[in-house]
């Protein structure tokens, strides 16, 4: 497995021809290796522009973008792109190729031996939750969710240290989207790559990101921090409004009962029984619903402890 890459945006500015306002205005961003970084913001904030500059689908005017200290301008274009996984909302699978052939695109460009490519394809299909026999199918024979799984597998094929994703789940129904979000997080933990993920959905940003960069109209970086820090201390009114009035509850949703200190308790303790994977937000919601002041956290038959309603406020 190749290591993850560190990405640095260094005072990057982009002005499209014939437009006065910049699409991206002096963007500086350091993304440590292995980080899941989400670019979020209103439409026209320059998220796609910023993303496509990394693999040079869009040229930038000034400043620099470096991958592991090396400017993207110093690498031959094809070499740069073959080393970066790229996933877009419209997916762009090759309709004339089977799923297996689609996934093998970059390994084939890199001249991998056939056997290695075939083994990798099987491994990837499993990784993204598809079956080995799906390799023989054509994209037109798959559902939207399955297609995006293939898109993800194709981007991961040659094990690139960096993954660029532009609203990859934007066109999916909420249930499929949630499933793929959860799986992408798991996958990120497993393969440990740097991911730059674009969305305009704040909930998705908070759920997915280790770090969130909020871009506002005109391509100005409004805030760059962890989801918890952004929710706790929005940099300005724009950010505060963008992340929503229910910031406190959103912060509680970032933590599960596993992350909080519980009071010791026994089997005889009153209150609903919940799993330690319940988010604090859902735990609070449940107590408000039942009118109880406390919950008992259980792992199977074992009591892990007791969580009090009054403890929730102290977490903020």
């Amino acid at each position, binding site marked *: 497995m190749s290591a993850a890459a560190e990405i640095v945006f260094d005072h990057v500015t982009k002005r499209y021809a014939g437009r006065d306002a910049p699409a991206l205005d002096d963007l500086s961003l350091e993304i440590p290796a292995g980080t899941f970084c989400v670019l979020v913001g209103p439409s026209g904030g320059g998220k796609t522009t910023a993303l496509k500059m990394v*693999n040079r*689908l869009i040229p930038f005017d000034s400043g620099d973008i470096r991958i592991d200290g090396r400017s993207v301008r110093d690498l031959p*274009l*094809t*070499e*740069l*792109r*073959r080393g*970066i996984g*790229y996933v*877009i909302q*419209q*997916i*762009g*699978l*090759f*309709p*004339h*190729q089977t799923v297996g052939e689609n996934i093998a*695109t*970059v390994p084939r*460009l890199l001249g991998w031996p056939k056997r290695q490519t075939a083994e990798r394809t099987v491994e990837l299909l499993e990784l993204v939750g598809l079956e080995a026999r799906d390799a023989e199918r*054509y994209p*037109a*024979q798959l559902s939207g969710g399955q297609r995006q799984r293939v*898109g993800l597998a*194709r981007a991961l094929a040659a094990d690139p240290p960096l993954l*660029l994703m532009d609203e990859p789940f934007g066109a999916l129904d909420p249930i499929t989207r949630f499933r793929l979000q959860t799986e992408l997080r798991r996958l990120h933990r497993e393969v440990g790559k740097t991911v730059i993920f674009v969305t305009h959905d704040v909930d998705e940003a908070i759920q997915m990101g280790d770090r969130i960069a909020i871009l506002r109209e005109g391509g100005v970086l409004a805030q760059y921090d962890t989801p918890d820090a952004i929710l706790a201390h929005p940099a300005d009114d724009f950010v505060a409004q963008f992340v929503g009035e229910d910031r406190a509850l959103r912060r509680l949703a970032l933590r599960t009962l596993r992350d909080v200190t519980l009071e010791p308790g026994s089997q005889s303790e009153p209150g609903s029984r919940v799993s330690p994977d319940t988010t604090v937000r859902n735990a609070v919601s449940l107590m408000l619903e039942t009118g109880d002041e406390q919950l008992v956290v259980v792992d199977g038959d074992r009591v892990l402890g007791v969580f009090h309603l009054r403890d929730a406020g102290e977490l903020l």
Partner: protein
Amino acid sequence: MRDHWGDTLQPALVQHVELTAIAVVIGFAIAFPLALLAHRYGRLEHPVGVVSALLYTIPSLALFQLLIPFSGLTWTTVEIALVSYTLVILFPNIMAGLHSTPDEVLEAAQGMGLTRLQVLLRVELPLAIPAIVGGLRVAVVSTVAIATIAAFLLPDGLGYPIVLALKEPTPFKTEIYSAGGLAIAFAISCDLLLVALRRALAPWAVTGLA
């Protein structure tokens, strides 16, 4: 009674196949590189398209007449006319095929680091196959039809037995029917062959889901 098949129909059919094959092959050999050039250098597409469209508006008999002063009553004259028509059909179809790759597919291909040539060979051309074969089907069928008109110039092709029969005081209906029937059978056979070719070259396009 003469042996219609051995004396007349069989040679006429062979000539007709030759007239058609030469026209389609040469037409394709010109249209294909021209379309690749026009695809690469966008500015060419419009002028080529206009010239072909103009050609198509000239009635075939008139086109033969126009060419006779230059190339006489020869196969060359006939073929120049036939090739012109196939060009007019094939060029826009090949262009449409090359343009049919969806934007997001091109973006993904570029993003994965395919070179321009690789995008053409591995993505755009395979995706153009259904449109190209579609163009060939129309070109072949219409060339089979137009080639019968060549009999007004030369004693060749399936049109000739028809022209001869029409000149008789009481036309031999059998000649007209059998020559016409052969032309139709030939056209249909070519069309079925091309459909099979598309199935073989573009299996993804016949799953009916694309």
